[in-house]
């Protein structure tokens, strides 16, 4: 029997929610592990991120004398926005769990919301490092945003819709023929953007605790207890969602096109696999190249936009 649309939506959403929430710390763990191994360290176990989150969640909250409600209620908003975005991205299936709720622009918009609130909260404590991190973060994402949108726009124009579900369905239908030059250029652009958005080398160092080099960590410096847990988890989840968007827009192969346990399970596995691959790529970067000076970032991120534009050019001008 075919379940009704509403039920399907609820089931898929619940499934995706659970999978993402559980998988997010794990993905981070794999990245750390690989990085450690590449640096010939043993590195923490795969469960370490879970332990950290649990530890912070249990801790007594500290707040700065200067900070107020913004700092306190920013973390829920950040996580809430990213969770909402998480449900608008196809993962196991070619359709997004919340069918017809929002397209890629909504996902981007929700990320922007998260960034806005986080950057704002970083200014609440009135410290130098919060401002530094916040200032650098918004600047870098300002450079990354055009690349992000333009890359997705390439995929969207090919599919004829900005809805991620339609895009990935289109990709699946195209099969291997999808991987034309325009498509690959856009994919490359998006890959660069992921690096910038998730704060890995050469843009940012996720593990640093030297204040002057911090970008994302700098914004979290005043966070503690459950706030810290929420924010860290949010950033882990963001990586997962971005990876999902990446695979849905550019490598959607294997996503289930009909709603049935078998294909969904398969699609789920494939999807997680793709995410792990993305993660390994990031780990490789972290281990292999050094963090770049912030002033060199425009070249890197400009490159992303240029690749995306080139892709669009090929797509529009020489069809």
């Amino acid at each position: 029997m075919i379940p009704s649309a509403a039920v399907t939506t609820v089931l898929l959403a619940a499934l995706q929610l659970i999978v993402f929430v559980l998988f997010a710390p794990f993905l981070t763990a794999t990245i750390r592990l690989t990085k450690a191994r590449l640096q010939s360290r043993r590195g923490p176990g795969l469960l370490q991120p879970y332990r950290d989150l649990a530890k912070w969640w249990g801790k007594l909250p500290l707040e700065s004398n200067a900070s107020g409600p913004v700092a306190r209620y920013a973390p829920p908003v950040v996580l809430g926005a990213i969770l909402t975005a998480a449900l608008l991205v196809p993962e196991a299936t070619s359709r997004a769990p919340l069918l017809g709720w929002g397209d890629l622009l909504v996902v981007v918009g929700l990320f922007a919301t998260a960034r806005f609130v986080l950057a704002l909260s970083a200014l609440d404590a009135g410290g130098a490092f919060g401002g530094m991190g916040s200032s650098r973060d918004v600047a870098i994402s300002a450079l990354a945003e055009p690349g992000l949108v333009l890359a997705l726009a390439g995929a969207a124009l090919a599919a004829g819709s900005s809805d991620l579900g339609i895009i990935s369905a289109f990709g699946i239908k195209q099969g291997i023929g999808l991987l034309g030059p325009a498509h690959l250029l856009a994919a490359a652009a998006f890959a660069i953007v992921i690096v910038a958005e998730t704060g890995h080398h050469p843009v940012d160092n996720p593990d640093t605790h030297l204040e002057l080099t911090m970008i994302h960590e700098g914004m979290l410096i005043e966070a503690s207890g459950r706030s810290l847990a929420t924010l860290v988890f949010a950033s882990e989840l963001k990586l997962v969602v971005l990876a999902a968007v990446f695979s849905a827009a550019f490598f959607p192969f294997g996503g289930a096109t009909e709603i049935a346990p078998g294909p969904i399970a398969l699609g789920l596995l494939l999807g997680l696999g793709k995410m792990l691959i993305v993660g390994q790529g990031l780990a490789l970067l972290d281990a292999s190249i050094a963090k770049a000076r912030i002033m060199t970032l425009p070249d890197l991120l400009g490159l992303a936009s240029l690749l995306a534009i080139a892709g669009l050019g090929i797509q529009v001008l020489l069809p």
Partner: protein
Amino acid sequence: MTVTPDSGVVGVLLPIFWLAAVVALLLAAAVAFAPRLRPLSPILSTAGSALALALGCVLIASGASLSGSAFHVLALSTVAFHYDGLSGVFLVAFGLSSAAASLSIVGEQARSRPEEAAYPLFLASIVFVLGASTAFSFLLAWESMALLSAFLIVGLRPTRAVVSATNLYLAMTQVATAAILAGFAILAARSGGQLDFASWHIAAPGLGPISRNIALALLCIGFATKAGAMPFHVWLPRAHPVAPSHVSAVMSGAMIKTGIYGLVRLVVDVVGGCPDWLALTILGIGVVSAVMGVLYALMQHDIKRLLAFHSIENIGIILIGLGSALLLQAHGATELAALALTAALFHSINHAVFKSLLFLGAGAVVRATGLHDLNHLGGLGRKMPATMLAFGVGAAAISGLPPLNGFASEWLTFQGLFGAAGTAGIEPLARFAAALAIGGLALTTALAVACFVKATGVTFLGLPRTAAASNASETTRPAVVAMSLLAVTCLGLGLAAGPVSSALRAVARVAFHDGPPLVTVAAVSAEPQSSNVAIYAALSVGLLLAAAIGIIAIASWARARARVRRVDTWTCGIAPKPAFQYTATSYAKPIRLFFRRILVAEREVSVEYHPGTSFPSSVRYRSEITLLFEERVLKPAHRLSLRAANVARKLQGGAIQLYIAYMVLAVLVLLWWAR
């Protein structure tokens, strides 16, 4: 006055609303001079604006139109109006912004009675502009609007800077009006000397390509200047900051929109579309205004100047929507064209709401601290929580964050661009341009986020940087109410994006003369290509987001509240000082460096040392960016013209013999010409 179609209750409501609004505003002007009734003036202005808002809503909802005329001067009718849905849209934008602005000054007195009286008249002039149906009545209202706004800026006792800002504004608006007048004149000439828009529309198909292009170009220059689009924007960032805040709110929220209204009314409605080159030009102007506007805004540390540059940015976004709409319509993609125009109209309303909100917030800050400079503010959130909350909502909305209204209209704008880039009928290069515009718009929104994190954070968060900032106190109750209403409107328009955009879409279709509007769906939805659908279900997303936030917030704070421990902010172990904080300037520095090619910045660092030591006692840092158009084009042109004038004045050399020679020469030339 006649209402068409005269359908029962609407036929009654429209004239009543219109008359009531106009009467209320005129009364507001009159009572300003009455000794005891003076406090009533803002209240009456509020009422008038609210009525205009109601009028606009009814016009949009009913699709009816209200027309009439009165007062003839020579053969020309002074007040000839025809309000339709399009007017309604901008009446709504006007009403929202001016009602709030007027409400915010209830209980206060303007700088002088003439200004007190000029303010409602200024509002009335906008109402007339939005309805004028003949070239003459339009220009009459248009010029009155320019004059009154100029007077409101300059006031009775201005400083030198204010006077020069006003002069620049008057100069540009006059030249712009000359362009509009010339454009109108062409249209009038080509329609047998008729002066009313309706007959122009009838005669429009007969326009020759040359006169059509010239007229459209002139009109675009004129209206773009009023709208403050680059490169005609120079007056805006000078005029808006020096005006009183409620006036800035209306100017930014409603007055510059009349430029957009003029474009839509003339180019879309009357002339019925424009050639590709112009559509692309408008698109290009839009992108440039958006990107450069927000970049310049980022570099400002005067809060009102910052907001003024954001007006340029948002006008740019609106123009992007309009440009893509015109491009699409020129190639028969009427559905998408209507969609893109909807985006422009929707964003016009939204910008009116959040920009007025932000200006009122800025006004509250200035009133509380007497400071314009962000670098002297800080920590105001503790003292003025309501203002911070409202301002924050406005900031989020203007940054285009879901689920607020700014995102909805920008989403539609994006869809319009997707449509333009994806419509096969359009020339590849034009489509590529549209695709690039997508990137420009993305960059704009991202930079807007950066800018408003800066504006909000540096103003309201952290530690107060000056005594004035630390002694601030919450603003007046009416102002708080006004701002809260606007903030709620931001959220409401955001969540109700579906129905709102459907209604606006009907208006857009009528403006394009596409016949009866579509049946509309209860979500913002677009058809980038007819087969597929992209949807943003604003309400559902908003609720989901709220639920998620609520759950997490409760989970993390429900029981923790009591056990919070407070400590100093970590500043490497030193006791934190306000000076440690990032200032507005330093916050924007990375972006200034990233875009140093465009923002040619000059910085000066001067260090003073303790006598005899090498320990710095004070370090001051100043950095100014170069406003390219102003510095590289406008000022040189101005200097050149002055020099030219000086040369020309040699003609009047003082020697009578020279003068006789002029006459003889002229006569001989005339004779030679006449033989």
